[in-house]
């Protein structure tokens, strides 16, 4: 049975449809990549799953998580799932962390809100362990630091630690490495892979970087203007793209160890 099944998901802002009848499936422990250029509705999809769409968004369709339809779930019950069984990692780790609280507090907060009767001290211990798990050195000391005292890569680790602290069944990562350097990006991707190995969590990886997706995902969803253009196993998408848009997208990717020449572009000109 699949962990998450999205069916005919539509998100509208008034008359503007930003996600249009999207559907995909993700098995337990699986990993799904969503790619597409900017504005194609990737983030909206992930937020719809989290039930965190911005005000004014109208969401229809089925989002079935472990047999529960999240779209019709009460806010109360949704809250219990959010952060506990489904965790999310956002693109910009600096703005996604509250500057006023130590990272330890923010990690512990996620844990405590889903585990009743956990003492502060115990939660802090959980936070330190989570930070150790994401390879933050001297976690016991840095747990009391504020986000601005961390580098970009470390902040993203904190975000991951926060997501991991409750041992979720599904992690949604919305462009978790876009703001980072290649070397740091590689570390974070490794870390995510390691974590999934350890906990068996499923992953939705949202990115516009096709190479990243090819390394991380089992299944890929290609989006354009809120529509799914193509869905398939990663191997199929990358070795045998069916849709011209997917093909063009792949052609446009500059390659580090491949032929040099004119990059193929979408529709040319302006």
């Amino acid at each position: 049975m699949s962990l998450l099944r999205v069916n005919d998901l539509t998100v509208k802002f008034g008359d503007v449809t930003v996600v249009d009848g999207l559907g995909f499936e993700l098995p337990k422990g699986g990993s799904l990549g969503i790619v597409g250029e900017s504005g194609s509705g990737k983030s909206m999809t992930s937020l719809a799953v989290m039930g965190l769409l911005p005000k004014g968004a109208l969401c229809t369709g089925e989002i079935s998580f472990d047999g529960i339809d999240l779209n019709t779930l009460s806010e109360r019950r949704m809250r219990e799932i959010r952060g506990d069984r489904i965790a999310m990692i956002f693109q910009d780790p600096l703005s996604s962390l509250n500057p006023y609280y130590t990272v330890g507090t923010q990690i512990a907060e996620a844990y405590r809100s889903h585990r009743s009767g956990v003492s502060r001290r115990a939660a802090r211990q959980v936070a330190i362990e989570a930070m150790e798990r994401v390879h933050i050195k001297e976690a016991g000391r840095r747990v009391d630091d504020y986000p601005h005292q961390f580098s970009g890569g470390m902040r993203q680790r904190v975000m991951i630690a926060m997501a991991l602290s409750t041992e979720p069944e599904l992690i949604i990562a919305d462009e978790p490495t876009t703001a980072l350097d290649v070397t740091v990006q590689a570390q974070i991707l490794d870390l995510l892979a390691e974590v999934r190995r350890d906990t068996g969590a499923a992953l939705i990886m949202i990115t516009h970087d096709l190479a990243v997706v090819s390394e991380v995902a089992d299944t890929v969803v290609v989006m354009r203007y809120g529509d799914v253009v193509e869905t398939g196993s990663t191997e199929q998408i990358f070795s045998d793209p069916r849709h011209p848009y997917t093909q063009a997208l792949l052609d446009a990717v500059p390659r580090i160890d491949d032929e040099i020449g004119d990059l193929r572009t979408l529709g040319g000109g302006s």
Partner: protein
Amino acid sequence: MTRYLVNRVLGMLLVLFLVALFTYMVFFLLSPDPAVQICGKTCTPERIDQIRANLGLDDPFPVQFLHFLEGLFLGRDYGTGASAVHCSAPCLGYSFQSAQVVTDMIVQRLPVTAVVAIGAAVLWLLAGVIGGLLSAVREGRFTDRFITALTLGGMSVPNYVLALALQYVFVVQLQWLPFPQAVPFADDPGQWFLNFILPWTVLAIGYASSYTRLTRANVIDTLSENFVRTARAKGLRPHLVWRRHALRPALTPIVTIAGMDFAGLLGGALITETVFGINGVGKLAADSITKNDQPVIMAVTLLAAFFVVVGNMVVDLLYSAIDPRVRAGATT
């Protein structure tokens, strides 16, 4: 941090010194001769000369200013012989018109002004924050538009107009409230409260309006911050999301602005105290201005400047205490 503090305090002292110098200079140039004031209605030139000499008023400006500074730090005597008046440090001057040490005049009135100011501050902070929150929560709805209209009104009606209007309605017509008087709290807490309601309201209303707007804007801004989304993604209870993640960042700047406004309140107290005849420092300033009692005006000006400068510094320190980003950076 220590170096920052030292730099800050030095800078503050410099500003204060310049303010004192400038104020003294302006009043030295503009001031009617205090000797003439002392001399009274029937005065002879000889007597004026005598008074000038006795009080050191014939010294050149720098000397007089030095004496003033000396009084500020060491205290000084005004006059000569048995009629001399000692003014101990920090001596802000001597009012020749009322034959009193200015420091005493101010100290006597400060408690009343403090009551007016603190009460007003509490009122405007409460009203501003609650109104702003309500407005933000109901953004775009009737409540929001209603509160916004109220705040615009609150900022448009000059406070003296408001003071008179409120007094007319609640005191003269309805007789719900007494004509405001500075009843000491110890005498009768109930009366104290009733008497101060109008001054508090009048002083607070402008601030309350702008704080409402500020709170609203800040809260709306903060709610769209990514970290609030993170907090919700963690599955935090809404009240926690609000209290910890939305309110604290939204209200921090308001706390610091409040600090500055509070420090600058003496100016606002002037009109309120004058209109209601509350004998605080503001009224003292207004009265001294009508009487042209320059030493008092100057002292109040200096005092107010002191509050503003110190208030700014306290706010800076406060800010670095509550905002960890500033704390670590310790930059201006």
